[in-house]
């Protein structure tokens, strides 16, 4: 049996609020097969970002198990989780989050530099990726001189440069127009699939979800799998989910 890239079991997470505790996730069980693209849907405040934080090891669960690529993140120290993230995960953010004081190339090389240095081979790979995203001529530019689409393409390249096993994307097209968003999704397809890299993508957009291999939705603090053709579950299609901000 193939090992899942992500395995969650009995996962629970609450936050203090108004003198009490507000439960965001409760008893979440989930297994994501390696190499697949997964969309995670849910209304605002439903716990999508919390789940992403738990899977990336940025946050720790109150209860339950988080295993990523066979590593039990919930048992690791803060430093060990940081190193795990650095070596095995890639991130694409909604607001790109390129480092404004590093050039495009330096941003790309960041995962290597954080490990201690860049080899010529790694530099070559960074340039290749820049070429693939069509921005090799912007090698020495500052990020704030690039358009939103260009910045996100760089961010995609940065997420992949160290060949992670899992890429976590938080609304990767949320800040882009439809066409530019398509370009970014195409890039993710082109670059991740040949390497068998998994993708977990938090989104509100149905068109993004449709391009994934499977779609999950957070309902009543649990993650539910949407089967093909379950149009009611898609954002914009189901009144229940789309307006469910109160559900948490």
């Amino acid at each position, binding site marked *: 049996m193939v090992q899942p890239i992500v395995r969650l079991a009995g996962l629970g997470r609450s936050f203090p609020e108004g003198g009490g505790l507000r439960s965001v996730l409760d008893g979440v069980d989930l297994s994501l097969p390696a190499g697949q693209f997964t969309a995670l849907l849910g209304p605002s405040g439903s716990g999508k970002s919390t789940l992403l934080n738990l899977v990336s090891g940025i946050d720790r669960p109150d209860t339950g198990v988080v295993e990523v690529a066979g590593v039990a993140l919930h048992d690791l120290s803060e430093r060990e989780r940081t190193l795990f993230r650095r070596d095995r995960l890639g991130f694409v953010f909604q607001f790109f*989050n390129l480092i404004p004081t590093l050039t495009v190339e330096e941003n790309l090389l960041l995962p290597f530099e954080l490990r201690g240095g860049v080899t010529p081979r790694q530099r070559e790979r960074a340039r290749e990726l820049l070429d693939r995203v069509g921005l090799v001529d912007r090698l020495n530019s500052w990020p704030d001189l690039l358009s939103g689409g260009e910045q996100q393409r760089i961010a995609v390249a940065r997420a992949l440069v160290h060949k992670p096993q899992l890429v976590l994307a938080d609304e990767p097209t949320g800040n882009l127009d439809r066409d530019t968003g398509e370009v970014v999704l195409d890039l993710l397809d082109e670059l991740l699939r040949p390497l068998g890299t998994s993708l977990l993508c938090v989104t509100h957009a149905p068109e993004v979800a449709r391009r994934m291999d499977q779609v999950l939705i957070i309902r009543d603090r649990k993650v539910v799998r949407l089967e093909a053709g379950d149009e009611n579950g898609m954002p914009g299609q189901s009144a229940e989910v789309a307006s469910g901000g109160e559900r948490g």
Partner: protein
Amino acid sequence: MNPFPGLGGGPLFRAGRRHLARNPWQLVLSVLGVALGVAVVVAMDLAIQSSREAFRVSSETVTGRATHQVLGGVSGLPDSLLVQLRMEGGVSAAAPVVDAYVTSPRAPGRALRLLGVDPFSEGAFRPWLAGGPTSDLDGSLLLSRRGAVVLGRELAEVMGLKAEDPMEIGTGEGWGELQVVGVLEARDRASRLGLQDLLIVDLAEAQEQLGRLGRLDRIDLILSGEEDAGAREAAVMRLLPPGARLERAGSREATMAEMIRAFDLNLTALSLLSLVFGVFLIYNAMTFSVVQRRRTLGTFRALGATRGQVMLSILGEALLLGVMGSFLGLLAGIGLGRGLVRLVTRTINDLYFVVSVEGLALPPGVLLKGAALGIGATLLAALPPVWEAGAASPREAMARSSVESRVRRTVPLAAGIGTALAAAGTGLILFPTQALLPAFIGLFGIILGMALLTPLGTVLLVGALRPLLRRTTGVLGAMAARGVVTSLSRTAPAVAALVIAVSVTVGLGIMIQSFRGSVVQWLDATLQADLYVSTPSAVSARADGELPPGAGAMARNVEGVQGLNSYRGVELLTDYGMTRLVALDLDPLGDAGIDLIGGRSGGDQVFEMFRAGDGVLVSEPFAFRQEVGVGDTIRLEGDRNDLALPLLGVYRDYGSETGAVMMSRAVYDLHWEDAGVTSLGLFLEPDADERTVATALREALGTERPLVVRSNSELRELSLEVFDRTFAVTRVLRLLAFGVAFIAILSALMALQLERRREFGVLRANGMTPRQGWGLITAQTGIMGAVAGVLAIPVGLMLAVVMILVVNRRSFGWTLEMQVGVDLVLQAVALALVGALLAGLYPSWRLGRTSPAEALRGE
């Protein structure tokens, strides 16, 4: 591979460096903060070290290789003692010395040291004076003619002198003439420093010039090289006349250097305040820089930078700022030190002893200490922001979290720590000891504690102000008030820096005001006579010359003089340390001139006993330092015989902090061989004219010696002038400290307002005019200033109490009456308000020029 990716060429440090380069004002203010703090500390340290070094070198030069010194009492030593020591004491190496400070019209205001030596005895002691193949000077030159003098090349050039030139010197005896017979070349730095104020003459010449025929100031001895040095010492002691002491070489200098320790410590503590403000500045700038980059730091963390890497990179930035600031601070400190050394030397000359400093010494230790302090203080100030950076969660790369809500949660904790610190500081101050250092540490504890209490004070005061502002100025006023609290991470340090700067200004102001007030009261009480006669002293504010013999009797016969006090003051090394002996022939009219502490009850009886020679009085600093009280026995070694008399009373005296023992003239004459009179205080007939009497006095006392006759009001003015001069250094330091604090506030306010560019853009987009925007910022900085002013009053009063009752008492032994002027309190609020409003000008101008679109775009 770079093992420290947080440092050097690592991406975090590279990004940080570029961030600083993109925000040059932030960089400049941070570097300036460190530089100014370091400059003030280094300048003060250099000035103090230079005066000490000059004193040490000058002492060593004239002490030479002597191991022991026989020191004379008030009247010195008889010539004959030298022969006795050689013949009966078996001492082979002994050199007689006459040593005094004189002046010369060719070097105005400069104290020159007239050293009278016997060229034939000098070989073993000061070889550069003795003659011979390796010497610099043919000693026999000194004997070649009357008035022969030798001096160093540097001094000769300053005075425009060369061989064969005549020169005039001023002594307590009047004006005398010398002739240059040789100019000495300095062999090294030490001898150059040693020679810079030295006039070398033959022993007999010095005795004649100074009116000390047959008397020596000291005899230098070399005993340790001889067999059985202990027995030699005992043999020498047996031969000593009453009043003379055998001391190891340098012990007298060490005692004198010890005298200025408290003075030095006060100045050092004051200069450290500037560094404290520098620390605030760095803290502000670094915190702002971290808060500004939280999202970036969060991204670094999300991408796998460890907490340690992030913290190390911020610490690296701080180190860079610290090194740059300290380097600039050292350069500025050397420049500033040249100015301060003059003020410090002047005060030492006025209050303690004569020292001539003509250049700034640059001991590497002081510079290293300055650099270490600058870098250390920067790293210390950077710790909270470094911690803050380490706490930047990767989540912040995805969502904005509120730094401010966390800061607001820490307000009670900060207040708690502040209270504990202030309490610990108070405890340290109240701990019964005479040591000064615990008092200063306690004082800094209180200051730091108060700084930590400022956020709570700000929240409470602004909370109380807000409804009032809402009613009077509408929504903008309420917004301004709310903004102070919602941005507490930025506003609290700014207000704290302002509170400390203003409270220190208030505290020092009250201390100086109280001190001056106490001195004025003391002068009113002690200056009872109508005219005062003394000899002038060019090198010190104190009268230390000698009036012509029989001056008292002559003055008494001048028409219009009803009565007089005669006063003799000499500095003497006693078992109590350096002590000023005061012999007073007290006219009944002058009883009130001695301000006895503890009320005047029994005063008449005290003066009766004092006149009868049944006891002595001591000054307040003496009683404090020696821990003696009324009834205790005071013991002194006299020239003729030893004195042991009961202490009758303690009198207030702000004239000398070394401590004085006052006795009646009759008692003095009984124990010391010294007929000299230092000054006279004359009581005139009610209808006598001061000027006429003064003219008659000058005629009666003759013109052989220069005399100064001053009226009561002139002497009072002069005394206050000296007082003000003494505090000139304090004032300069206070000003510098405030300057650094002002820059700290400016930096904090700029950070605060520029950080809110986006918010400002939203307001502008919604129709707020630039004028309204200016009003908003001004209101906000005004609120901060007012809050700081109000908080600074109690803190300033507290600092004043500590400085007056503890620091001054332990430093100088004086009690001062606290005087708090309403004007000073109002000044505090005004100072804080104006400081804050001025600091808000630039940010409001800059924001006013920013277009709303640009502000909204810039994240």
